[in-house]
């Protein structure tokens, strides 16, 4: 291309954003939008989708890191990571109506790219810690305490708000530069092409290596996936064993689900077992030996012994009704959106029937992903 031979009015297109950059950009935008929507608005009921999108963001960020070394000219970090001097110069001339042309990322845009990648990685990392400690799921569940998970969940949320602010700034920057440079930058990210107008700073030519990048990414994802699978299979920190006492299951589980003992604190279990003849309106008495054995087992495995979310939520009871799980402040708060009639209808029958909606109730895990509300019920 000989620019000197072209008349000034003729514009020439040149490829800037390669397929890898464009696919990455729009897939990331979609995944982040979905993760933000499910995280901010759908909360518990969309956790499954939120996690899938979070993993997608992680893989995309990993791809971008690889592509920053193996991609085309303008994809490489070497072509756009700005020097402090270039950044200051760019900032000083922000008001200049005839700015220096950057075919690739301008210094401020480059800073945003790096910032977004860092914040996304931090959001993914804090989300994984929160998932491990708060819900005892994922690769970090065997190592993360509830308190750590709870703290990191707050950091995860704060970073998500920071990300929203950064996305707004990114869009504002794109709009500003599109106006200042008389160039549709959104279109450029779709077609990959930009006008060549002198003086334009062009990147050093570099050939993309899609096969090598795919191999590196595949190896990273495979190793990461295998590691996650191995770790996630290990028991979570402070998670009670799945097996319940067989006498308890046989004698108490005949009438109601065998509530995992971490759903109440020890004093509540003592109160329940002290008067089985008057057990929520019925006689549920047992022989003295069975009563004593079950009471001891319940007290030994009560809420304060474990580190799961249910164990933390339900150790605080209603002082007026200390034996009623459904009277605890946490239970009321978590079920307040569900109309009382839902608990009476078939096949729920009673609010005591946790398993009607929580498919994993018997295990005591109460994972948000395992909630299946009866048809027609919104919460």
């Amino acid at each position, binding site marked *: 291309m000989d620019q000197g031979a072209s008349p000034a009015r003729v514009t020439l297109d040149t490829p800037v954003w390669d397929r890898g950059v464009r696919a990455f950009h729009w897939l990331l935008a979609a995944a982040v939008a979905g993760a933000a929507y499910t995280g901010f608005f759908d909360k518990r009921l969309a956790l499954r989708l939120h996690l899938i999108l979070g993993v997608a963001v992680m893989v995309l960020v990993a791809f971008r890191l690889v592509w920053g070394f193996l991609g085309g000219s303008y994809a490489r970090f070497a072509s756009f990571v700005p020097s402090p001097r270039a950044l200051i110069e760019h900032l000083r001339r922000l008001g200049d109506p005839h700015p220096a042309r950057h075919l690739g990322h301008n210094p401020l845009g480059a800073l945003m790219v790096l910032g977004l990648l860092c914040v996304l990685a931090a959001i993914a990392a804090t989300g994984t810690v929160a998932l491990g400690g708060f819900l005892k799921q994922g690769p970090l569940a065997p190592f993360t305490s509830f308190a750590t998970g709870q703290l990191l969940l707050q950091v995860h949320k704060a970073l998500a708000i920071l990300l929203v602010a950064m996305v707004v700034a990114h869009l504002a920057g794109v709009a500003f530069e599109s106006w200042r440079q008389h160039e549709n930058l959104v279109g450029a990210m779709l077609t990959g092409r930009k006008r060549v107008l002198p003086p334009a700073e062009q990147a050093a030519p570099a050939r993309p290596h899609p096969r090598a990048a795919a191999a590196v990414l595949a190896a990273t994802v495979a190793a990461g996936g295998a590691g996650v699978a191995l770790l996630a299979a290990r028991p979570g920190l402070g998670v009670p064993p799945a097996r319940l006492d067989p006498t308890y299951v046989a004698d108490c589980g005949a009438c109601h689900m065998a509530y995992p003992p971490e759903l109440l604190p020890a004093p509540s279990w003592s109160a329940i077992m002290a008067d089985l003849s008057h057990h929520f*309106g019925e006689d549920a008495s047992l022989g003295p030996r069975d009563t004593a054995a079950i009471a001891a087992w319940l007290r030994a495995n009560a809420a304060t012994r474990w580190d799961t979310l249910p164990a933390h939520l339900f150790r605080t009871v209603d002082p007026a009704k200390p034996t009623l799980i459904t009277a605890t402040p946490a239970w009321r708060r978590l079920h307040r959106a569900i109309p009382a009639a839902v608990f009476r209808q078939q096949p729920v029958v009673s609010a*005591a029937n946790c398993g009607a909606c929580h498919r994993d109730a018997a295990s005591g895990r109460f994972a948000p992903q395992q909630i299946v509300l009866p048809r027609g019920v919104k919460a």
Partner: protein
Amino acid sequence: MRRGALPSLAVAAVLGLLPAAVAASVAQYAAARQAILSHYAAEARREDPNFKGFSASAGQAFFLAHPAAARPATPSCSTCHTTNPRNWGMTRAGKRIAPVAVSVTPSRFTDLHKVELWFRRNCNSVYGRPCTAIEKGDYITFMASQ
């Protein structure tokens, strides 16, 4: 031996043995239930010297009654077991209860410890008192006829 004959022989053996095993366990259940009825009959004779034997129809009336002393949540046996013992029942906490009728659940009333446990619990809830041996025997006799 022809190839594949061994698996088919095994299948035939299982198909032949299965009904036999079921029949054997049903017979064992019947014997165990009869022993429990004899136990209650002996107690019933102590309760009432004129005791002549258990009555299925008395058991049915006992099952369907709404006693005045019942606790509010459990006005009748049929509250949880439904009025037809051959139906599946449901507890107030939403747990399904296997039919009480012996024809549907052959293992019913074959373990004295379990039978005593549930008569104590449920008689106190529905009748507000322990049941007599005659009532228990009538109830089992009715369920065995269903």
